[in-house]
C-alpha cells in the first residue's frame, strides 16, 4: 500500500475485516495431517478451486485444497465482490446526481458521497460473502485445507508447509497477478493495484488510472462518481480492446460524460514527484502532455501465477506470459494434472466458476471427456452501462470462415429502457448465416450482466433464434430486447415454403 503525501491512507482492521480474515485465513489455523493419497489436490483456493474441491468432495473424493494466502482469491478479496460493492454505491451517486431528470432531484448541497462509509459497506459485503470461502466450513465439508506455498515435487506429489501431499489427480488454479508496467519513476511515486485499492478509507482527490481494461474502466468510473477527478490512460485506441468497437465507443462516451479525462492510444512515459503531487508524462504518437495526480492505480492486465509452483518437476508445460498450457479437456502436458482459470492465459474463457469446475471434476476423477470449447461462458464488465459478451465475436467467426450476420436492437427501441431512462446501448446477437444458430452475443445496457444470461442459456441448450422468438417475456422489460432481436430474425429470414403456403391460404380465405 502506497501513501502519497497524506492523500491516501490505509485503514486499520475493523470488525468486518476480522470476520473476513478469520474465514479466509484464520490466524490460528493448523494444517491437517495429510492422507496417504488424495483423489484430488487443488492448488489455489480461489473461487474456481473451491468450487472444484466442493464438487469433488460431494462426489465422495478425498480432496485437499492448498492456498498460499487468502481463500476466495482475487474474486472475493481484491476484485469482483469488492469492486461490485463499491460500484453499487458509485452508481447510486450517479443516479442521485441525475435524479432531477426523473422528477426527483436532490439539491446538490444536500447530497454528498461518503467514500469511507462506502468502503465500510464494501468490507461488510465481503465479510458476508466470505462465508462460502470459510476454511472452517470447507473443512467441515470434508476438504483438507492447507495454507502455505504449494510446490510440485514430482508428477504426483507436492509439498506444502513441510508436508507432502500425494495425489491421483491435481488441479492448478493459482490465478494471476497484476502486471506492474515498467515506467520510470513509478516505484518511487508508489501506486495502487487491485490488491491495495480496496483498503483505502479516503478517496484520492485526483486519480490516474493506467490501463483501460475491465478493472481500470470499472474503478475509473467508480472513483470519478465518488468525486475524485480521474484520468485514464489506455495504450490501445479503444477501451476493453477485446470487446466490439461499438461497445468500447459507448463506454468511452459514458466515461467522458462522467467527467473522466480520457487518453487513448497513449503511453505513460515516466512518473515524477512534484510538490505535493505526482506528475505523469504521457505521449500520444508525437504529442506529449503531463497530468498531475494524487494517486496512481495500475490496471494494465494480469500475468499467470506460475512461479515457484515446481511445474518443471511435475512435467507441466508453461510459460510466463501464457501460463499453463492445457488442452480442450483442461488437461496439462502431465495427464494427471489439470489447470483452469487465469493461470491458463491462452484459454481466456476458462473461468472456472461453475461449469468448468464441473468439467475438471468429471474429466479428472471420472475419466470424462468434457470439452471446454463446448461451454458458453459469458462475462461482463460492470461499468455503466455494463458490457457483457458470450460466445464468438464477429471477427472470430469470420476468421474461421463462418458466415455470420448480426441482429441488432438498440436499447432506445425497447419500451422499458425508454421508461427507465436507460436507452444507451444495444443487444447484438451473432447468428450463423442461413441458420438460426446463435454464435455469440454482446449486450451493452445498464443491466447487460443480467440480460446476457438468457442468451447464454439459449446457447448452452442449443436453442436457436426461432425458439427464442417463441419465448414470452413479461412486458415491459429490458430483456425484451432479446425477443425483439429474435422476432426480427424471423421477419428478415428468407420466406419458407410454409410462408408461401400461408399466403396462398389467406388469398383464398
Amino acid at each position, binding site marked *: 500500500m502506497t501513501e502519497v503525501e497524506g492523500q491516501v491512507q490505509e485503514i486499520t482492521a475493523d470488525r468486518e475485516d476480522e470476520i473476513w480474515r478469520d474465514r479466509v485465513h484464520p490466524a490460528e489455523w493448523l494444517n491437517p495431517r495429510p492422507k496417504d493419497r488424495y483423489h484430488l489436490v487443488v492448488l489455489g483456493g480461489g473461487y474456481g478451486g473451491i468450487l472444484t474441491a466442493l464438487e469433488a468432495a460431494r462426489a465422495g473424493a478425498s480432496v485437499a485444497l492448498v492456498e498460499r494466502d487468502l481463500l476466495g482469491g482475487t474474486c472475493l478479496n481484491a476484485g469482483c465482490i469488492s469492486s461490485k460493492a463499491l460500484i453499487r454505491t458509485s452508481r447510486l451517486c450517479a443516479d442521485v446526481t441525475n435524479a432531477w431528470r426523473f422528477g426527483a432531484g436532490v439539491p446538490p448541497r444536500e447530497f454528498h458521497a461518503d467514500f469511507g462509509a462506502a468502503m465500510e459497506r464494501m468490507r461488510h459485503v465481503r465479510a458476508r460473502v466470505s462465508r462460502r470461502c470459510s476454511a472452517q466450513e470447507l473443512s467441515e465439508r470434508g476438504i483438507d485445507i492447507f495454507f502455505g506455498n504449494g510446490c510440485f515435487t514430482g508428477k504426483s506429489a507436492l509439498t506444502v508447509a513441510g508436508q507432502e501431499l500425494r495425489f491421483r489427480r491435481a488441479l492448478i488454479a493459482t490465478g494471476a497477478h497484476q502486471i506492474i508496467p515498467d515506467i520510470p519513476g513509478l516505484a518511487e511515486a508508489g501506486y495502487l493495484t487491485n490488491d491495495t485499492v480496496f483498503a483505502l478509507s479516503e478517496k484520492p482527490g485526483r486519480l490516474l488510472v493506467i490501463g483501460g481494461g475491465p478493472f481500470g474502466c470499472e474503478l475509473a468510473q467508480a472513483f470519478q462518481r465518488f468525486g475524485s477527478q480521474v484520468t485514464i490512460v489506455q495504450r490501445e485506441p479503444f477501451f476493453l480492446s477485446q470487446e466490439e468497437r461499438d461497445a468500447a465507443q459507448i463506454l468511452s462516451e459514458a466515461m467522458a460524460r462522467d467527467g473522466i479525462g480520457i487518453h487513448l492510444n497513449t503511453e505513460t512515459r515516466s512518473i515524477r514527484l512534484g510538490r505535493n503531487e505526482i506528475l505523469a508524462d504521457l505521449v500520444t504518437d*508525437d504529442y506529449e502532455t503531463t497530468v498531475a495526480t494524487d494517486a496512481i492505480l495500475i490496471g494494465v492486465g494480469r500475468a499467470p501465477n506460475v512461479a515457484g509452483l515446481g511445474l518443471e518437476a511435475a512435467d507441466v508445460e508453461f510459460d510466463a506470459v501464457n501460463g499453463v498450457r492445457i488442452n480442450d479437456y483442461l488437461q496439462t502436458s502431465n495427464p494427471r494434472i489439470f489447470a483452469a482459470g487465469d493461470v491458463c492465459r491462452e484459454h481466456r474463457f476458462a473461468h472456472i466458476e461453475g461449469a468448468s469446475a464441473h468439467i475438471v471434476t468429471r474429466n479428472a476423477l471420472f475419466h470424462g471427456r468434457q470439452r471446454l470449447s463446448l461451454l458458453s461462458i459469458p462475462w461482463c464488465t460492470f461499468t455503466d452501462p455494463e458490457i457483457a459478451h458470450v460466445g464468438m465475436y*464477429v471477427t472470430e467467426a469470420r476468421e474461421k470462415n463462418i458466415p455470420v450476420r448480426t441482429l441488432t436492437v438498440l436499447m432506445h427501441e425497447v419500451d422499458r429502457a425508454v421508461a427507465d431512462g436507460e436507452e444507451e446501448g444495444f443487444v447484438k446477437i451473432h447468428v450463423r448465416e442461413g441458420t438460426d444458430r446463435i454464435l455469440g452475443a454482446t449486450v451493452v445496457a445498464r443491466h447487460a450482466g443480467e440480460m446476457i444470461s438468457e442468451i447464454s442459456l439459449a446457447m448452452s441448450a442449443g436453442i436457436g433464434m426461432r425458439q427464442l422468438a417463441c419465448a414470452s417475456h413479461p412486458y415491459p422489460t429490458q430483456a425484451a430486447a432479446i425477443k425483439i432481436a429474435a422476432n426480427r430474425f424471423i421477419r428478415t429470414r428468407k420466406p419458407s415454403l410454409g410462408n408461401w403456403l400461408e399466403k396462398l391460404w389467406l388469398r383464398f380465405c
Partner: protein
Amino acid sequence: MVGHASITPRPPAAGIFPPNDEVLLNHFQESAFRYFLDRLNRDNGLVADTTRPHYPSSIAVVGFALTSYAVAVERGWIAREEAALITLTALRFFHGSEQSDAPDATGYKGFYYHFLDTRTGKRVWQSELSMIDSALLMAGVLTAATYFAGGSDAEREIRDLAETLYGRVDWRWSQNSGVTVTQGWKPECGFLHYGWEGYTEGLILYILGLGSPSHALAPESYAAWNATYQWETIYGRDVLYAGPLFIHQFTHAWVDFRGIRDRFMREKRSDYFENSRTAAYIHREYAIRNPGGYKEYGQNYWGFSAGEGPGVRTITIDGTVRRFFNYVARGAPFGPDDGTIHPSVIFGSLPFAPEIALPAIRQLYEQDPRIRLEFRVPNGLNATMPGPDERGWVSEGQFGLDQGLTVLMIENYRTRFIWDLTCECRYFREGLRRAGFSGGWLER
C-alpha cells in the same frame, strides 16, 4: 485567400425559388465547384482545406478538386484548357516536391502529408503521412488522367505524370510488415497506432493499393481487412455497418458499385451501392426516432458523419444537460451524437437514395437562409445548440471535402459521369478485380 482566383461565385438572386430539383441541384453543384477555384493556389494547384483564414491545403481536397475540374468542363463552367492547366500545375507540383523522411517534406514513399502549406507545399501542423488521404488524392489524379485523354501536350503530360505519381506510391510499405494497411506515419514517431477495423473509407485505399502496377498490396490484405466487417440487421435493415455516413460515400464517389460484388457482398447478396442506400435510411430512421431528443431531427434532418461540432462544452438547455463535441466522427445509430448533422452527406446520399435525400436538401434550402445565401453547405449544423439565430449553431466557413462530395455525388446522380470515367481506368478495374470484385460493368 490564397492564389489568384478570378471567378467569383454566382449564387442565384435572393428570393428566387428554384423551380425544380434539377435547378436546385445545379446551383448547389456549381457553387460547390467554385469553392475549388476560390481556394486554389494557381502556382501549385493546391486547394485550401476550408475557407477559414490561415488553413492549409488538404491533399484529399485536392483529390476531389482534380475530379471536379472534369465535371466543370462537362458542365461548361470552365474551359477544358484551363482545367487541364490547373490539373497539370497540381500534378507537376506533386511530382517535383520533396519526397523524403525530412519533417518538412511534402511526402515520402509516394504518399503525401495530410496537410500542406498552400503556398510552399511543405508539411504543416506536424500532420501525418496519410495513407487514406493519399488514396483520395490518387483517385483524383487517376480520374483526371482518364478524362484528359486528348492529344495536347498538356493532356499528354497529365497522363504521364499521373502514371509516375501513382506508380511510385509504396502501398506495401504502408502495411508496416503487417497484413492490413496502417493509417499513417510520422517522421517523429513512425507508423501510427490507431485501430482501423471494420468497414471504413479505407475501401478506396485497398482498391488503389491493389491496382498498383509497381507496389501492389497482396490480395490477402483485403481479405484480412474484410474479416473485420460486421453485417448487421439494424432497424430491420441488413447493412454492412459503419456509423459515419461519409464512409458509405467517399470511395463510392469514384467507384460505381452497382452490380459488382466482392466475396463479402456475394455472400450477403448485396453490393456497396445498395449498402450505402441502406445506410442513408438507417440514419434517417435514427433521426426520426431521435433518442437524444435533439431539435429538428426528423425525416428531412439527418446525416451524421465526421466533422465539426459546436465545441467541447456542457450546457443545460431547456432543463436538459447537453454535451457537445468538437471535431468527431459522429454516427448512427451508436453515436456519438450531440445534435449535429453534416449536410454534405445528404448530398452524398443522392445517387443511392434520392427519394429521401432530395426532400432533405429541399428542406435545408427552404428553411435555412444561411444555406440559401451561398448555396454551399456548411460542415455542421446543430439546431439544439443555441446560435446567433433560432436555427442554432452552424460551423464557421466551408470545407473543401464537403464541396467535393457535393460536386461528385450530384454529378453521379445526374449523369454517372465520374463513375463512367473510372470504369475506363485500368487501375481502378485492376484494383477491384484483385480485391475479388466481379460481375456488372467489370465483366464488360
